[in-house]
């Protein structure tokens, strides 16, 4: 292949001479793409973005914690500059960008990111909003006390170590993780082709589930899952807030995937005479600054009503506190429901419980996380016990040598005194006492003062103590039950010290779905329908009670020769149904329209039920189409039509208003009447209309309803 390096198809470019050393091989594009991409994808999946199921850490976090432990940045020491930690991590273990390492460290400190922070911070570590942490040269850090539990016993050969990236030092491939960190602190990660999103949980709840599993190791999967779900109520977010409904939680726990609805905690306060909504707890991972901006934008666009002002009063002293000042006539509950619907005040946590199991990414139900963690703990305990056993046996071995020497003290001293060299003394001792080299060397290293009688007793006691320990360690290694008890006891100890109460409240039985009724205030009102096809509504408090001599209130001002045909009281949460003589029913759900809120009854003439006469239909299908009648087009109707249109443009800016174009997909509902009218403009649509109202039942059909399948109440007239 050598020298054949010029591109084909180039006419005048002569071949270049590369000499004998240059080599050019060929690689197929497709092969190179697949290979390189796969290498990248796999190392991101296994070695970067996803947590290990046993300790719940991604490599960068594991390295940060181990480097802090290894470098002596421990909880009982003074704080050290974050730059030092970042430098240690990068130089020894993590050959990647320093900013990525610092970001990971900062996250370990932030109490709103971590349910149980693993690093303690001194200085500005940012806010839940758009404030980042100060530069690493300003901030200081050390391990949080809980982080010591992640690395506890690591020096007793409890986990495997591997070479670091340049083979100069060694790093743990997993941490002992003496508490179930993955479920407790959760994890977020985006790899290639897959991602993980595990919510944080309460330490006490997860621990009690693990304890149950330790007590009932033989329980089958289904009963384990049941027991876990009884103990772990659901995620417990560091920011508190509420979880609506348990279905998403159960999905996530049973299958590894589920959508959990979170909702902010909002209180209604009276501040300087104004009603305010005060947001004190936000859903997990919602940025309060962006939320405030979003609300302000929605208010500006007119999509959210009833809000006069937004103030962010959050601070270190008050905690999260976003104040939304309401307009004087706004109904707090309705504004709040709209906020829930349109902003991250209510948000979903898309749980996707994926973790690395034995080097392979797997989506697990919750019992998988518990069992893998428990298995890991048993392994840690077994390895720790084996390590301690070996050490105790080595010590006991030396002590046995001491005891032999003390038994024959005079001969030993004589032997040492007559020996020319240390080696000779050692060999002599080995023969004299029948000890091995290790013991003989240890005897030679004995200090003279240990020959005192009392010291002898101490050595004796020590030897006995060691024998007892050895027996104990052997018993532990022989008994899986003992091992489980140890895991339980040590976990209980951790929970006693670090466990705390649940922060996130779970509301059962409500899934956060809201109907129209939740989004508009319920007001009592009077609906007036005239024979001439005009309809209007009036808030019933406009008909105030009158005293002696009152002139009364005029319910409607009518056009000439029109009469009020229907007059009834209902509320904005009821539907209006219009039955036509052709057997169709039309309905209005949101009874705020058509009508006028503010117009007093004295001048109210109502809106024409059909804005245009003789034009076929109106744009908005919510208007009862069959009210139309071919009235002569007068200046008045045209003005009424303009008003109506202006009203709709003002109040429903998101809808389409071109009068000749019904919104897409609605055409079919316009039905026969419309087509008939188009063909025969002279034929009048039915005029006899009965208006009824009813509570909303479970099933809802748009437009024409089948009269056979719904129940209706007679209006309260």
């Amino acid at each position, binding site marked *: 292949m050598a020298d054949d390096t010029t591109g084909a198809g180039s006419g005048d470019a002569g071949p270049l001479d*590369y000499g004998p050393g240059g080599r*050019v*091989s*060929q690689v197929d*594009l497709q092969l*190179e793409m697949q290979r390189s991409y796969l290498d990248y*994808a*796999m190392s991101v999946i296994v070695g970067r973005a996803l947590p290990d199921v046993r300790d719940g850490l991604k490599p960068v976090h594991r390295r940060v914690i181990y480097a802090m432990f290894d470098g002596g940045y421990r909880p009982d020491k003074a704080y050290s500059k974050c730059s030092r930690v970042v430098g240690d991590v990068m130089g020894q273990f993590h050959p990647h960008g320093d900013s990525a390492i610092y970001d990971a460290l900062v996250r370990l400190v932030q109490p709103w990111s971590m349910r149980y922070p693993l690093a303690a911070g001194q200085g500005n570590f940012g806010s839940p909003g758009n404030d980042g942490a100060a530069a690493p040269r300003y901030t200081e850090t050390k391990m949080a006390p809980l982080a010591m539990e992640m690395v506890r016993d690591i020096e007793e050969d409890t986990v495997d170590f591997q070479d670091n990236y340049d083979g100069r030092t060694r790093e743990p491939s997993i941490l002992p993780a003496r508490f179930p960190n993955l479920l407790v602190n959760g994890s977020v990660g985006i790899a290639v*082709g897959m991602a993980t999103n595990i919510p944080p949980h309460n330490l006490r709840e997860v621990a009690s589930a693990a304890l149950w599993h330790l007590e009932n190791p033989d329980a089958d999967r289904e009963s384990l899952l049941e027991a876990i779900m009884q103990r772990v109520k659901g995620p417990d977010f560091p920011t508190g807030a509420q979880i609506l409904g348990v279905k998403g939680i159960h999905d996530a726990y049973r299958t590894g995937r589920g959508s959990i609805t979170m909702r902010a905690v909002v209180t209604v306060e009276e501040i300087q005479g104004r009603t305010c909504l005060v947001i004190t707890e936000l859903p997990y991972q919602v940025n309060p600054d962006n939320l405030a901006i979003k609300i302000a934008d929605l208010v500006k666009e007119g999509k959210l009503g009833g809000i006069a002002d937004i103030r962010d009063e959050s601070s270190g002293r008050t905690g999260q506190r976003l104040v939304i000042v309401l307009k004087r006539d706004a109904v707090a509950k309705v504004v709040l429901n709209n906020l829930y619907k349109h902003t991250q005040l209510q948000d979903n946590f898309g749980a996707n419980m994926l973790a690395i199991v034995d080097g392979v990414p797997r989506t697990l139900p919750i019992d998988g996380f518990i069992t893998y963690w428990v298995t890991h703990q048993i392994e840690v305990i077994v390895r720790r016990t084996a390590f301690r056993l070996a050490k105790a046996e080595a010590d006991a071995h030396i002590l046995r040598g001491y005891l032999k020497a003390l038994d024959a003290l005079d001969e030993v001293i004589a032997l040492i005194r007559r020996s020319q060299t240390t080696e000779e003394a050692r060999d002599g001792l080995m023969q004299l006492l029948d000890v091995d080299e290790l013991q003989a060397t240890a005897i030679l290293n004995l200090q003279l003062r240990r020959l005192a009688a009392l010291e002898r007793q101490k050595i004796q006691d020590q030897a006995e103590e060691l024998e007892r320990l050895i027996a104990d360690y052997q018993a532990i290694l022989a008994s899986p039950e003992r091992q489980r008890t140890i895991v339980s006891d040590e976990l209980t100890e951790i929970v006693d010290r670090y466990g705390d109460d649940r922060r996130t409240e779970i509301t059962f039985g409500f899934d956060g779905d809201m109907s129209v009724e939740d989004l508009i205030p319920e007001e009592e009102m009077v609906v007036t329908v005239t024979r001439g096809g005009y309809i209007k509504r009036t808030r019933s408090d406009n008909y105030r009670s009158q005293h002696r001599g009152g002139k009364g209130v005029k319910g409607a001002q009518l056009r000439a020769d029109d009469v009020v045909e229907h007059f009834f009281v209902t509320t904005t949460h009821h539907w209006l149904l219009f039955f036509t003589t052709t057997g169709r029913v039309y309905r209005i759900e949101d009874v705020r329209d058509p009508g006028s809120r503010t117009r007093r009854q004295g001048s109210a003439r109502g809106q024409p039920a059909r804005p245009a006469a003789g034009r076929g239909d109106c744009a908005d299908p919510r208007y009862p189409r069959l009210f139309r009648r071919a009235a002569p087009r007068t200046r008045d109707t045209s003005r009424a039509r303009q008003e109506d249109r202006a009203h709709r443009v003002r109040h429903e800016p998101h809808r389409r208003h071109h009068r000749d174009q019904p919104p897409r997909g609605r055409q079919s509902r316009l039905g026969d009447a419309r087509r008939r009218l188009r063909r025969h403009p002279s034929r009048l649509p039915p005029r006899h209309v009965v208006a009824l109202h009813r509570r909303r039942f479970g099933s809802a059909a748009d437009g024409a309803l089948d009269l056979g399948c719904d129940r209706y109440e007679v209006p309260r007239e």
Partner: protein
Amino acid sequence: MITAFGAGIGEDFDPDKVRYHKIVLMADADVDGQHITTLLLTLLFRYMRPLIDLGYVYLAQPPLYRLKWTNADHEYVYSDRERDALMEAGIAAGKRIPKDNGVQRYKGLGEMNHQELWDTTMNPESRTLLQVTLDDAAMADSVFSTLMGEDVESRRTFIQQNAKDVRFLDI
């Protein structure tokens, strides 16, 4: 790149105007470098396809490690496996490697001195280049769509099916 190649992009690409007949992609020897290479190849394949058809595109091969033998010439290796093999062979042949800092890992091209980079990667006398060839355009097209397209599911399937082919994992 468009300016440097001088041949336009996409529909307007004119292979006769290409100013260089050897375009060498040189990225770090680790997996992130490989990722960058795939991204660049995607750009070239989608928007400057004739470059690949005509065989103008090459991949440089920077080393991943240097073995600093004390009693022999330093050796450069291009993968973890090659490193282990060479280490074993070298030690068997009586070569010694310092305990401390005996194996240097080139995490990035920036870790090399200019002379090292010249010797290992750029010198036409001694370098190895990989010329990118296109054997089956239709297959290549579908590979690009799978790896770089919007369908996550097919990407995931590809990864799962091929996960056993991975030569090494860079952690």
